[in-house]
């Protein structure tokens, strides 16, 4: 079944919840990491969760410009599409 943006958002919310970010379940694509008090160490855990769940590899370079939940969803969707050989 095709991965949807909502699947990625839910995975991000799950991970934010597991790292005890307050309000994790209410996180929206508009939220920035700084608003959520998510730092670089949290991001490493978040990236691993996304990689494991969606079978993609997110490089440090990919991650650098990602400053919000929405940007992380977009990046994941792009990598999933590339993996599956379909245009994003």
């Amino acid at each position, binding site marked *: 079944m095709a991965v949807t943006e909502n699947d990625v958002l839910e995975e991000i919310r799950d991970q934010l919840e597991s*790292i*005890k*970010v*307050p309000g994790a379940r209410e996180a929206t694509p508009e939220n920035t990491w700084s608003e959520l*008090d998510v730092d670089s*160490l949290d991001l*490493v*855990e978040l990236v*691993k969760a996304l*990689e494991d769940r969606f079978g993609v590899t997110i490089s440090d370079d990919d991650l650098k410009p990602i400053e919000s939940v929405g940007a992380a969803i977009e990046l994941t969707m792009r990598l999933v599409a590339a993996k599956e050989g379909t245009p994003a």
Partner: protein
Amino acid sequence: MTPRAPAHPGEHCDIAITGRGVVTSIAEGADAFFDALLERRSGIVEDLGEVSGRAGAPCSGFDPALAMTPKEARRSDRYTQFAMAAAAQATAEAGLPGDVDVERLAVLMGTGVGGLMTLETECVKFHDAGRDVRAVSPLFVPMMMPNAAAGMIAISLGAHGPGFSVSSACATGTHAIGEAKRMIERGEADVVVAGGTEAGMTPLCMAAFERMGALSRDGISRPFDARRDGFVMGEGAGCLVLERGDLARERGAKIFGYVVGYGASNDAFHMTQPDETGRGATKAMKAALADAGADPGEVGYINAHGTSTPFNDKIETRAIHNVFNGGSPPVSSTKSAIGHLLGAAGAVEAVAVLCALQRGILPPTLNFGEPDPDCDLDYVPDGPREAPGLKLAMSNSFGFGGQNACLAFRKAS
């Protein structure tokens, strides 16, 4: 001749204790802890189950949420959680940071083994994953490193004075408090949050101490008793707020006592066995008395290192004889109730000494029944003892590596 002017603001100051914090198996909070000691409560369980087949004194009901957010707690090893809880109690009692100058507020929180559970867990994950780097948590280093507790406390207080960890195995907590005293005397800080913390009750650590033959087979902590056969592992933290006396009085802080003497030494003999003559321990005690400007005859109580190992208790007794020359005051071991807290032991025991001075009552040594001719002092075996005239008391700690430290405390007038 005119007296030399002080080189540092703290040089000729008395150093007050304005806050105390304790996390142990029998109680949290200084007063509750001392009450539990007087009630002869023991935190020791016979079998630690999945952790170890040996006895231990775990802090089973400990809740890190009392001093940390859930996110901070998740990012901290248990040893840091203990330290944060003890520091929160001590700093609340002292009213920190309040109007204390945070540029001159320091943190010295020691540990003997640091974040050992984190190390064990991550090591297993790494090897189980065929040494896959991705299996290792990005939180591993900040959780495992021995200065994490000191760092977290500084963050929570906004303390910008010096901060680091002190490590001398089982003498850590005592060294930390002593070095905090020195830090104030050198003028590097006005207030220091100092102590020791330990969460060494992990499967690997228990196995390691068992292999050394250091743990009691009977599972009983009975310091100075002829049947003693090793220590029982404990866990927890102790913390004090040390403060320049003049500043503490100026801001109207409650003073729980004064730290007046600190002495330290090396056995330079063996990594795990004390020097048979008690030379190192003797030197540390004498140095603490000299630092306090006190005679042995003024000391009314000694909180012993008293681990319940055959060697320590015999040689500590010998060292006390060396210093007191037949005139030793009563001696008791808190480890009989809460086990051996390794790097936290000295800090927790310092709190016991301060409470003893404040209340004029000595905590007992539990489980003492069969005298040993090599341990011939008064170990307060029958229960708490009234000591209304108690004004000066000492606390001993001796660490693996042959590192010794002793503190002297004076009652608040």
